[in-house]
């Protein structure tokens, strides 16, 4: 592949056909790091977090109200005359469904904004890095508060920190309300904390205690990496250090009311009443800091660890070179990470200057990458809601709203990897027979909507410049029986499936 094609496709998000990479592809990429806009118009236009939290609050109030109604004295009598109870319950379900939709629309709008930013950006390399880091610090929209807040998480914890240090991004990511709720930190309570003591003295039936989920995943997935020397005791100690971090109004549980006084609903707060007092011992070091400074100090050391440098270097190298990245590339990235104190722009520039990334056939694109590159190649700036049920099954929840239904169909619903490890970044994960067939079906649909408005032969040369397209693929496109079929063949050509 030519260097222009690599800059556009491997580092960028795929060519639109109107870019001017010029004779210095490395300079073109590095300039994007400085030119990156953390809040482009599509994202800036989204409602503020307070509005999202308000819709979530309304839903929770509705749930509580319906529960009380069912317990009310009249309800028992109504339940005997079955019809009345059923009717009331159906009304409740309907209102509830609407309220849930009201929360969900923030997810739908967020997916749309993310996609539009990716399709219209002048800094596609920086946008790819946002997607990479967002997946590194993954949340998954498996709980309603995370559905509501996943977009806000990427837009406020990841994007603004792309020009900063790894430790800054990590600290912002793990304290965002979406992450605190997703990995159960919001409900974790120090067993020796003031609140647990009060609860115990009152003989409360509910057990209050630690949840080590976030602590473990920070060590295993976000920083050090699995099997790098920490043990179960370190995880539990870090979980104790993290107690106190929770979300006002969203934590759930018997202490929620107390937390409402600490901050506006939906904001991350440090609640000293939940914090486990005392000094923590983690990986041979003791942390005597009090309160919120304690977890900050632990995370600072985790972020600066050589194991973290190695872990991040392997993942970044894998994303830009191959499933088993060249050791020289990994070593160079790890050294850059350590020498710069985890400075992300330094790390990203080192990547651009690494010769290993400028060779090789490239990786099989993930569904997100393939869709974004296909839409960019056809000049789209969004996916419109399908007017004719053309794109996917209309009965699937949210299918009408367009983009996220398509990603669901392709096997990679946005912000829903289903695990805190994020989406896997290897060929074997995405290059399957079923995935290929689905892409061919989607490509035919996309191309069918464009018809003869694009000449696939000239567009192919523009998006895969410098003879990056094989003669066989070029011939298959040229021999297509219609312009739309030619475009579909471009979008599924082997060279277009890889980056």
């Amino acid at each position: 592949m030519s260097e222009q094609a690599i800059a556009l496709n491997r580092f960028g998000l795929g060519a639109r056909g109107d870019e001017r990479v010029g004779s210095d592809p490395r300079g073109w990429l590095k300039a994007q790091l400085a030119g990156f806009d953390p809040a482009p118009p599509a994202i800036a236009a989204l409602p503020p977090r307070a509005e999202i939290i308000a819709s979530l609050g309304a839903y929770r109030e509705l749930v509580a109200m319906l529960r009380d109604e069912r317990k009310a004295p009249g309800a028992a009598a109504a339940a005997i005359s079955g019809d009345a109870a059923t009717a009331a319950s159906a009304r409740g379900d309907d209102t509830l469904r609407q309220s849930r939709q009201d929360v969900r629309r923030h997810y739908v709008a967020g997916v749309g904004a993310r996609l539009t930013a990716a399709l219209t950006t002048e800094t596609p390399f920086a946008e790819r890095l946002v997607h990479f880091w967002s997946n590194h610090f993954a949340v998954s929209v498996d709980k309603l508060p995370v559905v509501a807040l996943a977009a806000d998480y990427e837009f406020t914890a990841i994007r603004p920190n792309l020009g900063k240090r790894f430790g800054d991004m990590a600290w912002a990511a793990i304290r965002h309300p979406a992450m605190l709720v997703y990995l159960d930190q919001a409900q974790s309570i120090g067993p020796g904390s003031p609140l647990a003591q009060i609860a115990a003295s009152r003989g409360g039936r509910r057990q209050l205690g630690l949840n080590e989920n976030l602590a473990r995943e920070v060590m295993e997935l976000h920083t050090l990496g699995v099997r790098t020397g920490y043990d179960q005791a370190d995880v539990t100690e870090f979980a104790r250090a993290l107690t106190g971090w929770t979300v006002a109004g969203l934590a759930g549980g018997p202490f929620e009311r107390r937390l409402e006084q600490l901050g506006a609903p939906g904001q991350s707060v440090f609640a000293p009443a939940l914090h486990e007092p005392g000094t923590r011992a983690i990986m041979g070091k003791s942390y005597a800091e009090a309160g919120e400074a304690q977890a900050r100090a632990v995370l600072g050391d985790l972020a600066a660890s050589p194991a973290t440098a190695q872990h991040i270097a392997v993942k970044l190298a894998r994303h830009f070179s191959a499933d088993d990245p060249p050791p020289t590339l990994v070593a160079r990235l790890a050294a850059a990470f350590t020498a710069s104190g985890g400075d992300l722009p330094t790390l990203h520039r080192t990547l651009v200057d690494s010769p290993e990334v400028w060779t090789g056939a490239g990786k099989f694109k993930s569904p997100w990458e393939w869709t974004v590159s296909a839409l960019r190649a056809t000049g789209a700036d969004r996916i419109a809601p399908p007017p004719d049920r053309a794109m996917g099954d209309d009965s699937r929840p949210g299918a009408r709203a367009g983009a996220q239904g398509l990603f669901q169909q392709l096997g990679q619903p946005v912000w829903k990897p289903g695990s805190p490890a994020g989406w896997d970044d290897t060929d074997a994960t995405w290059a399957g027979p079923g995935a290929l067939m689905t892409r061919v079906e989607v490509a035919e649909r996309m191309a069918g909507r464009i018809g003869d408005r694009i000449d696939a032969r000239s567009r192919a040369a523009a998006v895969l410049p410098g003879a990056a397209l094989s003669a066989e693929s070029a011939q298959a496109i040229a021999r297509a029986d219609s312009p739309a079929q030619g475009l579909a063949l471009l979008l599924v050509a082997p060279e277009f499936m890889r980056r």
Partner: protein
Amino acid sequence: MMPILDRRRALGAGLLFGAAGMMPGLAFAAAGTARRFVFIIQRGAADGLSIVAPTGDPALAGLRGALVEPGGTRLDAMFTLHPALAGIAPLFAQGQARAYHAIASAYRDRSHFDGQNVLESGGALPYALKTGWMGRLMSLLPAAETNALALAPAVPLALRGALPVATYVPGALPAASDDLLRRVTMLYEPDRQLGPLWTEAMKTKALTGDIGGNNGRNGAQLGELAATLMNPTDGARLMMIETGGWDTHSAQKARLAAQLRGLDALIGGLKTGLGPAWTDTLVLVATEFGRTAAVNGTGGTDHGTASAALLLGGALPAGPPVVAQWPGLGAAALYQDRDLMPTQALGDIVSAALAHHYALPKARVAGLFA
């Protein structure tokens, strides 16, 4: 459009053949070459102590509190099946289901991703093997029984090996035109990676014919879909079905019950859909590791060690409803003071079951697991 009609007609013919198979003579004739194996993987560490609860263990109530389900089906003096598994409960009495408890793979740490790697590869350590035990099993089977399919977008590790594997994603996109498919076939033919994948995709497409409308929306539909893909004479013989959502760190009681209702319906749909072929089918349900013996501070459980696995099918060898060398849940009996102690290796259980199912020498099958 003709080719699509042709595919539908072919599928109809297959179903007719299946119906004829219900006649005793033909059913026997088919049985010789129609053994089926299904692996339902529970990703996320399913809580064996709730699925098959050791209600006869005096320490259970103290550790689990409100997580202990009041109802369920008593399997023996020690164990009770979770009430949400009401559909498969009768199979235990009929000798068509068996639970194995206090079992674990070779993995002894608490990372999902490493644990699933060991569960699927059958290796002694994470990432020690690049292929999976089902993939290696395929090389031991007669060619007629190696048709493998994963209900997933890509081939899961357990199925990776020397032989090709198809994948199928239940979906509702309109099918691509046959002309485009033909051209893509030519386009991918010289590509070493995409060529073989595409061949598999086209084979599966021919198999699935008319079931595009079935979305796999819930367990029952997923089970029926799996059966539909396994029923035809040239259908899948080995299958892997992915299930997630078992990582119940909080509010476990309701979440796990919903998960198990889905699993119960999945197996029900599979059994019903397979009809007489259930007699020649073996189903394994297994997870990467178990969960902590005690409830945590958020009504859930954290990553643990030993768990339970299920084997189901119409031709299990005779045996008790639960096979366990029960280590006990007393404080001194726990692994690292927190988890159920593993006393049986999952690999041994699976290889013994496969040796029986496929009438293979035990020594050859045992080699599938390190």
